[in-house]
C-alpha cells in the first residue's frame, strides 16, 4: 500500500499515534474553538432576524451543525467498521470505541437544542417526524454501540460486533431518512441540500458554514483525544507506555 503517505502509516502504530497525535489534537481544538466562537457570535449578534421565525432561528446556528454532525459520525463509525472487518486494522476498532460516546452525547445535544428551537417556532417541543425520529433512533443506535462494547469482554469479538451493528444501523438510518417523503410533517424540508438549491438567504450562510466546519474540526479533535486515551489504556504493558506513565517521556 505505497499510496499511503509515511506520516499516516506511522499513525497505525499505537506508540507513534500516541506521540504524534498530540499536536494534531491541539491544533484541532484551537481551530475548532476559534471557528465555533466566531460562527456563534456572528449568528447571535451580526445577522438580522429571520422573517418568519424571529430571533429563535439563531438556535439553528448551533443546532443544525450538530444534528448534521452526528449522522456523519455514525456513518464514519460504520466505515471504520467496514475497514475493521476487511483489514483488521486495530485503529479502526479504537476509532469506533472512541467515537460512539461522543456521537451519543452530541445526539442528545442535537435533540435537546432541537426541542428548544421547536418550542417557540412550532409551538411544541417535540414532533414525530422523520428527522426527529431518525435522530432519536440514532441516539438508541449509539447507545447500543456503547452497551455492546461494554458487555463483550473479548476485544476482537466486541470490535466485530460493533462493526456489524454500525453497518446495519447505517442502512437502518438511511431507510428511515428516505421515509421522510411519506410523512407529512411540520419540519421544514432539509434546508441545505448537497448540489441542490440553497433555500437559505445568503446572509445566514456564512455563520452557518463556519459553525458546520468548526463542529467537524472540534469533533475530530474530541475523537482523536478519546482515541489517544484508549490507545494508552489498551497498551498498558508496553514499554513506551510505562515510560510515559513514569514521566520519562512526554
Amino acid at each position, binding site marked *: 500500500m505505497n499510496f499511503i503517505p509515511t506520516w499516516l502509516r506511522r499513525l497505525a502504530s499505537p506508540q507513534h499515534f500516541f506521540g504524534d497525535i498530540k499536536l494534531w489534537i491541539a491544533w484541532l481544538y484551537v481551530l475548532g474553538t476559534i471557528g465555533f466562537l466566531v460562527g456563534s457570535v456572528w449568528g447571535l449578534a451580526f445577522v438580522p432576524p429571520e422573517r418568519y421565525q424571529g430571533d429563535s432561528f439563531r438556535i439553528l446556528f448551533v443546532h443544525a451543525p450538530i444534528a448534521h454532525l452526528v449522522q456523519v459520525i455514525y456513518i464514519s463509525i460504520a466505515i471504520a467498521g467496514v475497514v475493521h472487518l476487511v483489514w483488521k486494522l486495530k485503529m479502526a476498532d479504537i476509532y469506533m470505541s472512541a467515537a460512539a460516546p461522543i456521537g451519543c452525547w452530541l445526539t442528545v445535544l442535537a435533540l435537546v437544542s432541537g426541542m428548544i428551537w421547536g418550542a417557540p417556532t412550532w409551538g411544541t417541543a417535540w414532533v414525530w417526524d422523520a428527522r426527529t425520529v431518525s435522530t432519536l433512533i440514532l441516539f438508541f443506535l449509539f447507545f447500543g454501540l456503547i452497551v455492546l462494547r461494554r*458487555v463483550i469482554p473479548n476485544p476482537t469479538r466486541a470490535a466485530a460486533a460493533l462493526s456489524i451493528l454500525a453497518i446495519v444501523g447505517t442502512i437502518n438510518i438511511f431507510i428511515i431518512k428516505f421515509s421522510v417523503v411519506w410523512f407529512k410533517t411540520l419540519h421544514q424540508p432539509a434546508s441545505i441540500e448537497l448540489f441542490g438549491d440553497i433555500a437559505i438567504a445568503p446572509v445566514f450562510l456564512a455563520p452557518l458554514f463556519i459553525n458546520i466546519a468548526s463542529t467537524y474540526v472540534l469533533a475530530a479533535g474530541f475523537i482523536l483525544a478519546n482515541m489517544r486515551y484508549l490507545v494508552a489504556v489498551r497498551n498498558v504493558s508496553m514499554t513506551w507506555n510505562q515510560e510515559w506513565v513514569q514521566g520519562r517521556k512526554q
Partner: protein
Amino acid sequence: MRYWALYRRELLIEFRSGVESLIPIIFFLLVVGTFVFTLRSFTAGDNRVIVSVIWITTLFTSLLSLDKLFKRDHADGTLAVAVLHSDAITATVVTKLVAHWSVTGIPITVLGPAVGLLAGMHIDHASMLGFTLLIGTPTITMLGALVTALLVGLGRGGELLTVLVLPLYIPILLFGISVCHLHIDSASYTSELFWCFALLTGSTTAIPLALGPILKLSQDS
C-alpha cells in the same frame, strides 16, 4: 436433502420442548388481547389502532422468542460442532431461521388477522394485515437473529437484546403499518409495499450469509 434433514432436526427440537415453544404465541395473544380490551373505546370504530397494536406486539413476541434461538445449541456444544462444519454452516443457519419463523412467524401471521377480526376489523383490512405480517415476520426474524448471534454466550438476557434490536425493527414496523393504514384509508400503498419487499429480500439474502462468521466468532469468549 441436507436442508430438509437439518430443518427436521430443528422442528423436532421445537416439538420436543413442548409447551415451552408455545409461550411466545400465548404471549402474543395475551398482549394483543389486553390492548384491544383496554383500548376498546378507540378500537371500536378504528381498525388502524388494532393494526398498530398487532404489529408492535409482533415485535415484542419476536424479542421473547429470539433470546433462545442459539442459546440451547451454544449451551450443549452443538453450535460449536455446527460452526466447525464451515461448508454446512449456511445450511444450518438458514434451516434454523426458517424453523424459528415456522413456529413463531407463521402462527402470528395467521393469528394476527384472526384476532383483528375478533376485535372488529373489516375482513379486507384484516387480510391486508395478514399479508404485511407475512412479509414482515421473516424480516423481523432475520434482523433479530443477527443481533442475537452477536450476543451468543454472553449470558445476558432479553433486556440487552431489546435495546439493540428494536431500533433496527423501526423501518419494517413503519412500512408495515403504513401499508395497512393507507389501505384502510383507501390510499395508494404501492411504494410502502415495495419497501417492505425490499427489506424482506435484503435481510433474507444478506443476513444468513453473515451469520456463519458471526457465530464462529461468538465461540471466542
